[in-house]
């Protein structure tokens, strides 16, 4: 094949070659608030309740990894805080932290409904997530706070429905995150931070976490509504229901939060 012929072929087929390498990416940013119930028996035997704020940034793109094609790679950054008070209403407790997660979703099943051009797709896969945060009780002296930290391998599953409504292509996506195994930090039952950090005494403070001692789940529901017909930018309405629990070192902990958020999501093709 002469060089001229090769160039002609490349020019002729280059649009298809490029298209084959195109990846759809999306970036979304939402912020909002809701309600939280926080129990940490290191600090108090009772759940503290109150308003919560939540910020979330999520990215999504198609990748090839682990010998699999068409995987969806997600990154998720969560920042949340809660301003709660005890049942008697005379002591405040503040909880907050940030989670960063990387997920790889494998397509499982896709249903095409020709009558209304909608597509229902299911995907699932592993997620690596890490969390840093703390719960602070304003009344306590030597046990004023409990640090929260974990590094977990989660299982995540997603159901995504693309449908047409009001001349727009909308997306409703539900995703479930289930922490499976990993490592978490916890003080021991009656251990003081003076012993842990001043004296350097370790007492099962790094805990092997599993569904038996960390039975938790996080739910995320997103509705994307394009701002204009065929626009790649959409308004995102989100609900995040996080149900985090643990029973490390005989200390009982839960953080139940319900957050409603609003923001934007942008989709674009990347070569």
């Amino acid at each position, binding site marked *: 094949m002469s060089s001229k012929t090769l160039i002609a072929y490349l020019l002729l087929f280059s649009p298809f070659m490029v298209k084959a390498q195109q990846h759809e990416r999306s970036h979304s940013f939402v912020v909002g608030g809701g309600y939280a119930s926080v129990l940490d028996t290191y600090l108090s*035997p009772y759940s503290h309740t109150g308003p919560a704020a939540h910020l979330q940034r999520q990215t999504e793109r198609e990748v090839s990894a682990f010998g699999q094609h068409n995987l969806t790679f997600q990154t998720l950054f969560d920042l949340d805080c809660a301003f709660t008070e005890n049942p008697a209403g005379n002591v405040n407790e503040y909880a907050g932290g940030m989670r960063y997660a990387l997920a790889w979703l494998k397509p499982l099943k896709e249903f095409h409904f020709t009558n209304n051009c909608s597509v229902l797709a299911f995907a699932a896969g592993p997620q690596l997530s890490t969390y840093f945060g703390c719960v602070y009780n304003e009344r306590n002296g030597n046990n004023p706070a409990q640090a929260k930290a974990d590094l977990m391998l989660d299982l995540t599953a997603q159901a995504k429905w693309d449908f047409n409504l009001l001349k727009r292509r909308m997306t409703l996506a539900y995703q479930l995150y289930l922490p499976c195994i990993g490592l978490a930090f916890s003080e021991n039952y009656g251990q003081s931070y003076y012993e842990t950090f001043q004296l350097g005494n370790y007492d099962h403070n790094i805990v092997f976490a599993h569904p038996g001692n960390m039975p938790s789940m996080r739910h995320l529901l997103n509705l994307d509504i394009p701002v204009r017909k065929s626009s790649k930018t959409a308004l995102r309405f989100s609900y995040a229901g996080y149900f985090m629990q643990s029973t490390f070192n*005989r200390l009982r902990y839960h953080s139940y939060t319900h957050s409603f958020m609003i923001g934007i999501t942008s989709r674009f093709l990347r070569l």
Partner: protein
Amino acid sequence: MSSVRKYFYILSLFLCISCVNEEITSSDTIRGNFEALWQLMDQRYCFFDYKKEQLGVDWDEIHERYAAKLSPDMSSQQLFEVLCNMIGELRDGHVNLSAVYDLGRNWSYYEDYDRNYDAEVVEQYLGKGNDYLIASSLKYRILDDNIAYVRCESFENPLGDGNLSLMFDYLKGCNGLILDVRNNGGGSLDTADKLASRFTNEKTLVGYVYHKTGKGHNDFSKPEPVYVTPSDGVRWQKKTVVLTNRETFSAANDLVKSMKCFPNVTVLGDTTGGGSGMPFNQELPNGWGLRFSAVVFLDANRNHTEFGIAPDISVSINPDDVSKGNDTIIEAARSFLNNSLSD
């Protein structure tokens, strides 16, 4: 098995997850608050066996005895009194119940004894105006016989390395040092440790520490050694006398426990007030705050110091001396140091 079905089964397994909720009653009633207090102490207080041995405290018997004092129509103040009397049986200065109108306590650790301290007389030793210097919570001056006098009222405020180095540098020409921790009710253990680190040239074992690991009265961690490491700053090398009384409590008691391990240190005065359990906080359904001993500190011989540390030299204040403006305990310390010098 298809992938969808496999994931469905895994998800179903997780949906069987049970809730992690409160395990102590949250009922804000007379009985509910009583039971919550009793259970919190039962599960978390660290001295039950020691108090049973020393005072004959039987926590189950106390439950029965005080439950009989409850009545459904009692007022909040009456309930508070019953609960305070109940926890008062433990004779622990670190056990308190706090409501907006009162702090329930048992301060018999010093109220039942001679005070051995007169603030006005101590002020005469410090002098007036700029006679004495202040470094954070330390007041100090050089007495007429070239003995350094350091008054340490509390460990509530942090002590900086600069505070301590400059103070010891100022006092370096003195023949001996009196560290007065009478009426020091404690504060931060870090601060007490920092002060102790100026009196040793070697890493010294000063005690052991352990904590509750579960609800049982004997669920404890392994005792871990506690050391005082010499400070990198200016360290005191000469004789030291530590003055104590029954109000030397908590972190100050811990300081005395450490100082007793150093060769150049003599403890003089009355037995300390004790308070060797680090207190934690919890709360009752009605919002009253509960403080209780949760972490145990032992001395270097693995003995409890909850009821105080006996001095090396026992001295009490003579009221006749006080009337003449003299503090018997300070004068005894000066004599001891001056005699040591002549020896």
